[in-house]
């Protein structure tokens, strides 16, 4: 691994892990889902780095495109004040 590949790898690791942490700690469920989707995009980027375009695309289609939308739908259907914003 060259230095550049190393740096890219750790960059993608950061893109995957940090949004996941933020998603877990988010008070607003909606924001949590959005951060989760960013984390999943980071996973897709890791797949790309490993040289599998098909995995990248399926990760984006299924996890980012469908599963997270399902989460969003679930969050929106919850009887909580999801529009309540902390000032």
């Amino acid at each position, binding site marked *: 691994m060259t230095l550049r590949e190393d740096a890219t790898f750790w960059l993608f690791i950061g893109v995957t892990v940090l949004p996941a942490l933020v998603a877990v700690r988010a008070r607003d469920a909606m924001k949590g889902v959005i951060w989760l989707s960013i984390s999943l995009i980071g996973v897709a980027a890791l797949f790309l780095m490993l040289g599998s375009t098909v995995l990248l*695309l399926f990760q984006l*289609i299924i996890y980012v495109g469908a599963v997270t939308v399902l989460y969003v*739908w679930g969050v929106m259907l919850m009887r909580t004040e999801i529009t309540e914003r902390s000032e």
Partner: protein
Amino acid sequence: MAPANPFDWTFTELCGALNDISYHVFYAAGDLPHNLWNILVTSLGMSNSALGPGQMTFHAGIADWLFVQNRAIMVPLIAASLLLMFTLINVLMFIWVERKLLARFMDRRGPMVSGPFGLLQNVWDGMKLLIKENARPARAEMFAFFLCPVILVGSALAAAGAIPMSPKVMIATIDLDLLWVLMLFAFAPYAVFLGGWASYNKFSLIGGMRSAAQMLAGEVPFFLSIAGVVLIAGSFRFGDIVAWQDAHGWMIFAQPLGAVLFTVAVLIELERIPFDLPEAESELVEGWTTEYSGLRWGMLWLGGYMRGYVGCAMIVLLFLGGWGMPSYTIGSVPVFAPHILPPIVVFFAKTYLVFAFFVWVRASYPRLRTDQLLNAGWKRLLPLTLVNIALAGFLIVDQVRPGEVAQTPLGPASQETIVAWSVGILTFLVMVGAYSARLMPRVLQPLASTARLFVGTLGWFGGRPFTVLYPYERLEVPLSERWLHGLSDEKCISCARCCRICPDNCLNMVESEKGQHPDPRFTTRPALDASHCMFCGLCVEVCPTGALTMGPNYELSGFSRDELYWSQDQLMGYTKHDMQENPKKGEMEVEGPLDKLLYPLLTPVLQFVTPHNYERAKGSHVDANVASSAIRALGGASSDDKEMGLIVDNMSPRSRKAVEMLLEDMRTRRKGPRDDSAWDLRHQRKREPKGSGFGETPPDEEDGG
């Protein structure tokens, strides 16, 4: 070396040529004035320290990424801007097609004023969006609010870039481009619910919720209905799928069910009518786009139509043979030979036809309810896509396990194929048997009513449009309409009854300057302030001599109050009103120099497209005024050739015919010995029994009050 024929250029070669040009332009631009250069360079993120004509070194920033060895400067930029321009033009054309076709389905004309056939209308609409305010909701989640149009347009643009338009013309060559486009389609729901959620508006939020549910219900059949195509063609590449169709025939014949399912799923994904629940205007103001305004709203619109282009292109590429066209020959004579067309032309013709079909759908169907949509997506489309995949499996069972070939009535087939088809047909028959009790009411009747709606809409298409080309033609009202007054100089006796009875005080007796009444005692005439006339007609009723009439000139509009004031002499026709004298003054200047150039060229075409004749329409704009004047003259029972001559002077042939018909009509009604029939008519009407008139309250009631 690029081939001589531009149609044979690949996009890379095109980019290479453009890159060479931009390279030279860029170096020549070193001679630009320093300030301009500075701005350009700093905006590109370059260091401006080492600037001089012909010798440029770039240090850091975006420049490093943009410039590879001082040469590849513009490749990504040119590719991106070409893609953007191409897609924008496509979107403008799509919107134009939609507006025009939808208008024709509704018997309107659609955009038609700016540019030939109104082609430029969308450009000006875009300009309008550009200068409108970009309002920001006070409590919106700003980042997500701004991100929504970016995601929508970005994903749609990236998807449009992956669509190949011919074997040679493509913006980007992406391996697995079908998957790539699917992936970008899957991104759009984010934009929708992000925008709906971030706007802090209940309409937006409900629209976003509906959208999330709808996208999910649509996405699964959307993906699964492609699976059959991919199984049969054996590739995730558009190019391979089109090549398969070139060799074996269009996929729609191999996968009819899949084509229908995919079209429905695309309509759901695009949120087009009948699946436009997320932006149902009648329930949720503008759905999830409610809080967006200005160019940001335009971006959402743009992204929507870009996705529309991608969806139509996908239908064409996957099911309708892409850029290929079958050709038929009898012997060696080509009977039907569309393959001589450039592939890109075939591709775009098909794409626009599919979009026209979408517009037809939009014109035909009402909006579904949410539960109907979800039922359709999960309970109908999804099982049917699975059936469709099974059908695709039957088709390719030969390829999976080539076995012993047997002769069947339909041709040679392997044993596996025969077994598979037998099982399939048997299953189908069993299903039909099981469902036959419910087949008629639940399946066939809805299908029949759907088809009836669809064909019925087509019957509306091409009808005579109701639109009135206002500056060129007026609504043709009956000549007996009661609008603007006319006054006969010879019959008015200056009694001022009209002024007294007028409930709005809009008639005043004024000394006539041009009148030629022989008796100097009777020279005052009523002048009309039409700005508050309510056209009750009391003045005409009360006129004892029938001097005051009302004609069919209903266009009482102007840019100032003065234009609504009709003096006594204007009412009598001695002086012309400004609007009559100079019709252009009160009207919008619609005819530009371009129109003047184009109308003679386009008139035959327009005659073909719409039953109205532009020339006739232009000539008729004085008709109402002329007819009004004629009534005025006839109301005065004037056989005065001078007055009639004045009126008929500048008449179009059509107006003259109208006046002649009117004169004929009046002549046939002249039964009595008297010449002035209008006076007669007035008095007959006055003699008719009526209820208590205005100001004719019986005295005993007055006393009682």
